[in-house]
């Protein structure tokens, strides 16, 4: 076998992904004067963090009486008790510090009259463990993700982080002992594969919402880090839990932030009824996202949807007045005008539940270390490998994420991972030898797409297969699921996946070949779609965002545990939920009402 020689770059740490989580971790390392490379398939400010709108949740108590323990209670309850309470305590406890830190970095938060950071009400947030609505979500108008992403990128410029923009990570390089020694990556502009050698590797590759046909997610959300982890023989956790955001613009998918309801907006069916009162008598429109999405789905099923096909409901906000809308929701007004043809100052916005966020992901602990059942326990750290952000499953979101907790997750655990990596790098100063065979495997995967397209122009196309996969997931793995639906979906997905080896490209240029990029992304999406269906089929209960019509109740006796999915033979393993927090009492699972 010929030795594939590809150029190599060596760093202390390599970070894959230039969104909020990757940038926050990179900052920690760069400011400690380590050699850190940040690889991103897009220029960092094109990352999906930029689309986050409503805010970042932290108990600052700038508006209403508040403390982090109430935030913790809401997050545990919101997770339908599947969240790990040690990680949730860590996140909520550190939330105020994390937000102040962002403010010190220069993030342009909106302000209250007294000069403090502006906070708004968000869904599932309460005072005093389930009491009155809390006002806890810190915001920069309705473009908080943009503000956060740009600020973190700017701080990394100041810290002189080394960016490798438009480099696409292919595979993890692991040696026989299981230690991760870096990644292979494709320089998109030239088509040159590179080896990035590093003693610590952090995955911050974001979500994979593009497994669905209709999604709020950017085109780039193809779960590349998850594919890398599965191919390296490691599992994915809780992949059955996908959040359907109650308010996406139909078909287009663009997100209409929960902040619209936080600022006083509410949902109406075709009869003009404020139907949330029937589903969540106390919290109404600010119930948890899974609850509101199910309510909308019920309205649509009951024939009370709006429009000629009855396939959406109305989100009314005009009553708060034009000035408030322009000041606090300018981005929403812009999106509504552009994508729904509606000015919310005058008319209600059409909305429908839309795939939005992946609660599951790469199993990790509260130091950002990737953990897996390797030899002894179910949560053994994989040496040299970290994961943070939407691609990771800490798990702070459990079965359902609360709004405002995802930006928080990025910065709290981005920092925590950075800190732990500093220790790890100090304790492991010597690079280990790189297994060449692993590099070759990755290059072979890349070379597979050099195969010529059949002369007759036949064969499968990447776009065709992707469309078929997305239709299967949309039709079979939505807000409501049941065994027959999931089983049929898995059968169909198997057929689609079986056609993937017949796919070939007609574009074989090395220069900025986006056709090849989409093919490599599709390989990751297919693995994730399968992980989702297999995990969803196995979980015979309803919890959070996973609603089984054939098993409508939560079943703590059997299912208060995390799923672990391994690719290849679709093996499922399980591990217990960490119910014990770091310092406070456990919030015992109880019935969840809003």
């Amino acid at each position, binding site marked *: 076998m010929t030795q594939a020689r590809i150029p190599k770059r060596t760093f202390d740490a390599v970070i894959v992904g230039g969104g909020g989580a990757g940038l926050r971790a990179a900052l920690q390392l760069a400011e400690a004067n380590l050699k850190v490379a940040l690889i991103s398939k*897009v*220029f960092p*400010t*094109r*990352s*999906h963090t*930029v*689309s986050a709108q409503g805010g970042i949740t932290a108990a*600052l108590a700038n508006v209403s009486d508040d403390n982090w323990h109430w935030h913790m209670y809401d997050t545990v309850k919101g997770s339908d008790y599947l969240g790990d309470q040690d990680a949730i305590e860590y996140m909520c406890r550190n939330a105020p510090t994390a*937000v*102040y830190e962002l*403010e*010190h*970095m*220069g993030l*342009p*938060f*909106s*302000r*209250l*009259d*007294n*000069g*403090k*950071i502006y906070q708004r009400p968000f869904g599932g947030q309460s005072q005093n463990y389930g009491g009155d609505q809390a006002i806890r979500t810190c915001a*920069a108008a309705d*473009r908080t993700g*943009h*503000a956060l992403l*740009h600020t973190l990128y*700017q*701080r990394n*410029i*100041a810290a002189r982080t080394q960016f490798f923009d438009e480099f696409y990570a292919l595979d993890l390089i692991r040696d026989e002992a299981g230690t991760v020694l870096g990644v292979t990556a494709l320089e998109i*502009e030239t088509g040159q594969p590179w080896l990035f050698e590093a003693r610590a590797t952090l995955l911050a590759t974001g979500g994979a919402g593009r497994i669905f046909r209709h999604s709020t997610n*950017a*085109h*780039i959300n193809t779960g590349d880090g998850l594919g890398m982890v599965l191919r390296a023989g490691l599992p994915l956790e809780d992949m059955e839990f996908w959040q359907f955001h109650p308010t996406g613009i139909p078909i*287009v998918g*663009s997100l209409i932030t929960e902040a619209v309801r936080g600022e006083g907006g509410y949902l109406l069916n075709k009869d003009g009824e404020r139907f949330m009162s029937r589903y969540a008598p106390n919290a109404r429109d600010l119930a948890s996202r899974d609850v509101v999405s199910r309510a909308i789905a019920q309205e649509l099923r009951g024939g009370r949807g709006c429009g000629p096909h009855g396939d959406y409901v109305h989100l009314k906000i005009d009553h708060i007045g034009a000035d408030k809308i322009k000041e606090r929701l300018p*981005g929403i007004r*812009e*999106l509504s005008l*552009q*994508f729904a*043809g509606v000015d919310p100052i005058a008319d209600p916005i059409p909305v429908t539940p839309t795939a939005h966020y992946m609660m599951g992901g790469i199993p990790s602990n509260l130091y950002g270390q990737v953990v897996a059942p390797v030899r002894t326990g179910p949560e053994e750290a994989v040496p040299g490998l970290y994961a943070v952000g939407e691609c990771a499953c800490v798990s702070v979101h459990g079965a359902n994420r609360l709004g405002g907790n995802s930006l928080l997750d990025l910065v709290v655990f981005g920092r925590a991972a950075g800190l732990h990596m500093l220790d790890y790098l100090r304790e492991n100063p010597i690079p280990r030898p790189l297994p060449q065979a692993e590099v070759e495997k990755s290059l072979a995967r890349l070379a597979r797409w050099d195969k010529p397209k059949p002369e007759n122009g036949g064969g499968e*196309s*990447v*776009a065709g297969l992707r*469309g078929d996969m997305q239709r299967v997931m949309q039709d079979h793995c939505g807000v409501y699921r049941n065994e027959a639906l999931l089983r049929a979906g898995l059968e169909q997905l198997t057929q689609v996946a079986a056609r993937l080896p017949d796919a070939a*490209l*007609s*574009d074989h*240029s*090395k*220069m*900025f*070949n*986006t*056709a090849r990029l989409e093919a490599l992304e599709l390989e990751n999406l297919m693995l994730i779609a399968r992980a989702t269906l297999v995990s969803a089929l196995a979980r015979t209960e309803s919890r959070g965002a996973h609603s089984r019509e054939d098993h409508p109740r939560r079943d703590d006796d059997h299912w208060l545990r995390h799923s672990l999915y391994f690719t290849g033979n679709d093996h499922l393993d399980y591990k217990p939920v960490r119910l014990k927090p770091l310092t406070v009492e456990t919030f015992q699972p109880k019935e969840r009402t809003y």
Partner: protein
Amino acid sequence: MRFRIYRYDPESGAKPAMRDYEIEFEPRGKKLLDALIAIKDTLDESLSFRRSCREGVCGSDGVNVNGRNVLACVTPLEGLKEPIEIRPLPRLGVVRDLIVDMGQFYQHYRAVKPYLINLDPEPENERPQSPQERAELDGLWECILCGCCTTACPSFWWNPDKFLGPAALLQGYRFIADSRDQATNERLDFMEDPYRLFRCHGIMNCVEVCPKGLNPTQAIGKIKTLLVKRAL
């Protein structure tokens, strides 16, 4: 619908050329990016362009359409004259098809030190900022770095290496305008240069094309005013 799209692949050895495409496509409610994706998915997968958020917030898909710089994902197809002529953003080197080399653009952005400079010890809580002080940042911080403005600017076309361009200057002013920033003098020193700032002649193409409705010319004017005030 009929399209005429700029095609160039340096690897092919062929010169850049415009290629015609015709595709059945119902334009109602659809954006230009939808059509580009449909062409790539069904007619010609080698057509290359950048895209990410598809809702006008990430700034990836700036292109020149019928002579005007736009974001493909928020440009309605309805009302565009056919054949719709799509070219890469002007003046920057073309990597392939509609993909330009943004290196120069990003270099200018980095040059203005686009980060808050404040050397005071950090307080335990937030640094206070009144809503009025914060309002000074509106119309500045929302820039998505798409490059539509800078590549529409004749001053940038003439001196792309020396004139910072509207996007970088807008970001430069974003930090000057921030009540929390302490480096105004240093920032003004850097801008006070016959090329970096003063090549702006108020042509206002930047304002005309900004897909986010921002006004770089006004920000540049404010920098100039501060320089005059400082000199007095």
